[in-house]
């Protein structure tokens, strides 16, 4: 093309131009045409924006809980005692909650590794790790069901009152942990769906999805991972401000 020219300008068509970093990077990304979020698939950017909105929902719950607890005139039931388990005749505070925390963190670890093996196109490992993640998530929900049952039947906690103190305890507890448990349950369902897609080779063969018809790609494992880590993230805050306060 440029053979007849005496001085051809060297055009680099293989290597992408480096993007500016730092504050000028933010300005240039946001002021560029077409897309502000470089280097990420739009599905991932959309998942982040969804998670931001979910952050606001959970923050509203937790901040309302703080407001309600601080303004309660009756004593707040002590979570350390309410959620204690008796083990070998000895009462251990928050034991079940601690186990639930470790289960959820472990599921986050296996999820992170599933994403890694996904991008390496290692079908078998991705599938196995996704299934382990789903199993740990289901275990978490199971233990939460046990916790709720114990609280309702043995401790007599109701959304409108309880024998231990401030009536708001029940409503806040069922609202927040219920919403979180719903997120975990939905996550487990989607983990299984993604695991099946991986095993069937949908992501290698770019098979269209059942809902959106978009081509299967390994980035969906990472997007799934973002949701799952977020669920773990919310639990970190619930554990700290609800159970440890």
């Amino acid at each position, binding site marked *: 093309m440029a053979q007849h020219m005496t001085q051809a300008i060297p055009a680099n068509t293989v290597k992408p131009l480096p993007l500016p970093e730092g504050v000028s990077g933010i300005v240039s990304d946001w002021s560029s045409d077409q897309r502000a979020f470089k280097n990420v698939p739009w599905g991932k950017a959309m998942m982040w*924006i969804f998670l*931001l909105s979910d*952050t606001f929902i959970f923050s509203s719950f937790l901040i309302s809980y*703080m407001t309600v607890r601080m303004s309660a005139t009756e004593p707040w039931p002590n979570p350390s005692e309410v959620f204690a388990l008796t083990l070998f005749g000895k009462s251990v505070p928050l034991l079940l909650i601690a186990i639930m925390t*470790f289960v959820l963190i472990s599921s986050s670890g296996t999820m*992170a590794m599933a994403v890694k093996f996904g991008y390496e196109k290692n079908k078998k490992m991705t599938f196995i790790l996704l299934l382990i993640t789903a199993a740990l998530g289901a275990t978490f929900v199971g233990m939460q069901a046990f916790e709720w049952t114990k609280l309702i039947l043995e401790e007599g906690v109701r959304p409108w009152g309880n024998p231990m103190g401030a009536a708001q305890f029940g409503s806040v507890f069922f609202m927040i942990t219920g919403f979180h448990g719903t997120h975990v349950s939905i996550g487990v369902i989607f983990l299984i769906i993604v695991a099946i897609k991986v095993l069937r080779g949908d992501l290698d063969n770019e098979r269209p999805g059942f809902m959106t018809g978009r081509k299967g790609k390994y980035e969906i494992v*990472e997007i799934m*991972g973002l949701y799952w880590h977020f669920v773990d993230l919310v639990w970190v805050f619930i554990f*700290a*401000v609800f159970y440890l306060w």
Partner: protein
Amino acid sequence: MAHAEGQQHAHAHAQGQQHAHVEGQQHAHVEGQQHPIGIYLKIWALLFVLSTASYLVDYFHFQGYLRWFLIIVFMLLKAGLIVAVFMHMMWERLALLYAILVPTLLLMVLLGIGALEADYTFFSRGVFFVKGLL
């Protein structure tokens, strides 16, 4: 430092793909976040340690400001590690990081309003409903 490392991962992979990039689409083909498995295992272990530590705060019945300080420090460390490493935020471009982080930090305003409101409600209840509370 870590940010630069992530960029190298991305670029190395982009070159490995051997796509003949057209200028406008140059970043559409850069695929995914790839990092050594060791970092995930280390963060996982660290999260276990931090969770144990926050559980021990309750187990040993720390009270008062020490309890609050420890709970919040462990909570923020865990949250930071999950977002930065597991959710790959430390390797993303700042445009995405700030788009997510700045609105989240604005929630501190709501937190402050909630605390003020709660104090006032508690005060009013003390004055009008509960004799001898204040």
